[in-house]
């Protein structure tokens, strides 16, 4: 299938093309990411920058492993801004853009899951 937001090259190499393992990791991401984004939004509302940083930090490697390249820099900026307390006014836009990007990637990942099964 054709992907525009998700590049599964790393996951394919990592699993040696094992479809069951790829599906296992994709499923983990599908469960984990929406939950973490929910926490990020909640912490933004509470202006709890440290907890926001922690949530963004823990999601960052998973975005890389799922090959969502367009969102790698966005999540890094969210982590950096909340960690250093800089450009906090940009956070709502960054988080909204990240959520939109990841949600689109999730749709693609679900299609990949169907193709893998």
């Amino acid at each position, binding site marked *: 299938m054709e992907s525009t937001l998700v590049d599964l090259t790393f996951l394919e190499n990592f699993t040696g093309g094992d479809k069951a393992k790829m599906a296992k990791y994709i499923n983990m991401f599908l469960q984990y990411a929406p939950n973490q984004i929910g926490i990020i939004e909640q912490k933004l509302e509470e202006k709890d920058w440290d907890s926001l940083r922690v949530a963004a*930090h823990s999601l960052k490697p998973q975005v*890389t*492993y799922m090959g969502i390249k367009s969102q790698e820099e966005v999540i890094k900026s969210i982590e950096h801004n909340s960690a250093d307390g800089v450009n906090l006014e940009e956070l709502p836009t960054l988080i909204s853009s990240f959520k939109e990007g990841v949600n689109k990637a999730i749709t693609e990942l679900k299609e990949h899951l169907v193709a893998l099964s």
Partner: protein
Amino acid sequence: MDKDLLIFIVDDDPMQLMMLEDHLSKFKHFKIKTFATGEECLAKINEKPDIIVLDFNLDSVDRNAREGLDILKEIKEINDDIDVVMLSGQDKMEVAVNTMKYGAFDYVVKNESAFVRVENAIYNIIKKNHVEGEANRYKKMMYAFALLFVASTIIVIFAVYLGWMKGGGTDVVL
């Protein structure tokens, strides 16, 4: 490798934990145990792991969980022979330097190459321990030779002395 290596992996990110476990389980001499917190790892430290792969940030799930650096210090206090490889999502020099200062063997940034880098760090630890083992064996051997030399010298001197005494204390020719 003479024996299996017991490797603990500590990470509060379930996907990272599972991916690293899957990656390292490919090697038949590695026996892997995983923990979501440093506290759980410390509770099992009496199992004497050879290597611990430890995440730097361990409070994303439980905000009261102890951080990796704190756990590293305690591991080293308990048993300095356990080699620790630190994992972190932060690509910052100061973080790496801090972990090394407290005795970590290596520092690996969580990215696509992290799994191979952890594997390499483990093989570097194995090599280091092998070289140290060889050096210790050599030292022990040299010590044994030195003891033997001193003991034989004492015996020879004593024998010569006895011979000299038997001969009335004179006319000893060495």
